[in-house]
């Protein structure tokens, strides 16, 4: 059993296919906290105290976002800048998040081939996620294998997107019910919908 909080950050939800559908399904799952960051802070004035209290109340922190310029959308970055304060999240006396886990649920426009050393992005997805990985590290949190959808803009709605969203719901439900092992990601490890959905067949 784990308490999950999902931070969903998407500044252009009207135009979203994958993330909006993922968010809708995730917010329906009982017993998890779902935060639409852009809805809660439309004017980017994050309530630091409130966020810190929320973090303390949960075990698994999920960042759900589309990859923007190899990073998070700006509000989620602002959230990290302000909420992960010294003395709270890291540094002197900053061990409040120790032992919790960070899960990234990311959609990327490029294909999985693009995110290789031979592909046009020239680096793997995990290389681009290094700052977030180390953020978790500095906060003494486990960094779970990120749940990634490649080629999100071209994914077919009825098959690929549905598959990914089903996998997302399954993953969150399993974590909630304690049926998913929370362990640090190995080098270059990612999770896909197929990985999650095949678990249920076991």
């Amino acid at each position, binding site marked *: 059993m784990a308490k999950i909080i999902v931070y969903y950050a998407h500044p252009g939800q009207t135009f979203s296919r994958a993330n909006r559908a993922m968010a809708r399904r995730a917010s329906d799952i009982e017993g998890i906290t779902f935060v639409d960051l852009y809805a809660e802070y439309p*004017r980017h*004035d994050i309530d*630091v*105290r409130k966020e810190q209290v929320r973090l303390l109340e949960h075990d698994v922190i999920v960042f759900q976002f589309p990859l923007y310029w190899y990073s998070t959308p700006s509000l989620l970055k602002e959230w990290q*800048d*302000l909420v992960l*304060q010294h*003395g709270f999240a890291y*540094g002197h006396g900053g061990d409040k998040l120790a032992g919790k886990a960070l899960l990234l649920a990311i959609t990327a426009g490029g294909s999985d081939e693009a995110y290789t050393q031979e592909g046009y992005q020239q680096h793997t997805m995990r290389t681009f996620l290094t700052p977030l990985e180390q953020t978790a590290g500095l906060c003494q949190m486990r960094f779970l294998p990120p749940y990634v959808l490649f080629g999100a803009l071209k994914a077919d709605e009825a098959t690929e997107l549905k598959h990914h969203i089903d996998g997302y719901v399954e993953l969150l439900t399993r974590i909630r019910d304690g049926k998913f092992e929370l362990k640090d990601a190995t080098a270059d490890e990612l999770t896909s919908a197929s990985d999650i959905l095949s678990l249920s067949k076991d």
Partner: protein
Amino acid sequence: MTDFLLLAFVFLVAGVIAVPIASRLGLGSVLGYLIAGIVISPLLATLGVDVISIQHFAEFGVVMMLFLVGLELEPKMLWNMRAKLLGLGGLQVGGTTVLVMGVAMMLGQPWTISLAIGLVLALSSTAIVLQTLNEKGLMRSNGGQSSFSVLLFQDIAVIPMLAFVPLLAMPELMDLATDTGHGAGAHGAEAHGGSHASDHGTGDHGASLSLVDGLPGWQAALITIGAIGAVILGGVYLTRPLFRFIAMAGLRELFVAAALMFVIGIALLMTLVGLSPALGTFLAGVVLANSEYRHELESDIDPFRGLLLGLFFITVGAAIDFELLLGNLASILGMTFGLIALKSLVLLALAWVFQLQGADKWLFGLGLAQAGEFGFVLLSFTVANDVIPQNLADQLLLIVALSMLLTPGLFILYEKVIAPRFVKTQERDADEIVEVGEVIIAGHGRFGGIVNRMLRATGYATTVVDYNASHLDMLRSFGFKVFFGDATRPDLIHAAGIEKAKLLIVAIDGKEQINALVHYVRENYPHVPVIARAVDRQHVYDLFAMGCVEIIRETFDSSVRTGRSALERLGMHPFDAELAARKFAEDDRHILKEMALVHDPKIPTSQNTAYIEKSKTLMKEREEQIFGKRDVFDLSTDRGWHPPSEEDLDAILADHEAKAP
């Protein structure tokens, strides 16, 4: 004078008692009035009241109702209805007339009388049907719209009928009529023209004045066309400056007077040229459907319509001749039910031809199955023209009245038995006809104007209500949809559609007016969210106490922005100035909310100890900030980025050194 007061009192008491009871029992207001009429009829007989002449006066309610119906109907919608209007209406009147005529001939009446009876009974009751449809919210359904089309056609058809009826006159009745003329009572006299100068009732051509009498046909036609043209052109070009001029005076009752003058004037003009006044005012209503004065006119005329129609229904109930009824109980009841069945059959056949589905078919079929008030008019006219003998007319009158009396029963049958069976189709239909919920903006000055522009720019439909006529003219020239009127008046805000509104924005000036509007809407339409403008701090508390959640202080945001500009001008970094402004605003809102919670509008502030205590505590906190006893902003909850302190830095470095290999 005493007679008049007594009469008015009797009618009012009857209505005030019977209608709420009938409504509570789910019978609808029409049946309530009819029953009230039946109950007071012995009393009226004792007082020697001429019920029929009151009825003719009350028929003016129908004229007003059609004006109001016209206001709701834009010319484009009317044009879209033309197929239904002519097809459904024409076939209903034609078919019913022929069938009723056939039955009458089988019962041994000569063809002339039979045809007249057919015409009389083909008409339905606009008053009852529209009133009931509106009351039950069925007006916009497919069945309701079809019913309305037929009623409108009938209203028009009365005119040629009145022209046609004298041609059926039977010479052998002529002498008889002069002998028994007084037996016809008011009808005869009225139709001969003269006794009811105040009567502008539907289809009443008995007015003593006429512009077209004795003129050659082509001249009469020209004058008639000219009158219709005057109504349309006057409605389009003259009403706006006229209403504006009146609005400038700023007197409510003057506007009511103007609205009445307008409707009565048109009715009079129509009567003078021999047209149906109901048709004329309906046309004027359609012309004004796009006007900004529409809602104001609606709410001004509506009470008169309601009272007059109520009076009309009471007189229908009161006019039932029970002696005659009991004398011929079986035959009259039989003929009444026969008539309802026959009319229903014609209507159902039409519904089938015009592909009305499910519950709509039955609404249409049952709703119009009665004879109507136009029947009364036509009947008295036929008697006056020696077409139908008096004793037969009296029986017919009873049939017409009874069929009207039974109509609410048919609607109840529809509502309780038939409609539930078609719940599924009804739901689907409902989806199709659902109107887009609108945002109502009360007040379009410096405040509401900006809100309106913003909402419209983002594609929302707004209804603006404002009491400044010159203001509205300007807005109209920019193509905004605006209505004239005082938004604090319940009837006006109702006419503007508060019931179905998605949101009400209160942007009017003046604390009292804002309070009145918010209070009324919170009490009566708690489902409509309200965003209210607050004049000052104290006003916020008042609005909060009324259950208003979204309260915007009218000058707060601009003041904060001014403060921010000042900080920037004084050399503060723009982002720091922004953070200071945000922090200030949040802090201020916090105080406001705390104070609103302890504020009690029933206790004067000077006696509210909780309020005083709270304000002292909060003041102390602020003072500490202001005089620098504490940091203005609490570090841990600050919105901005802060570096670790020197101490922390040393600790981090020490930590790193310890870990270093």
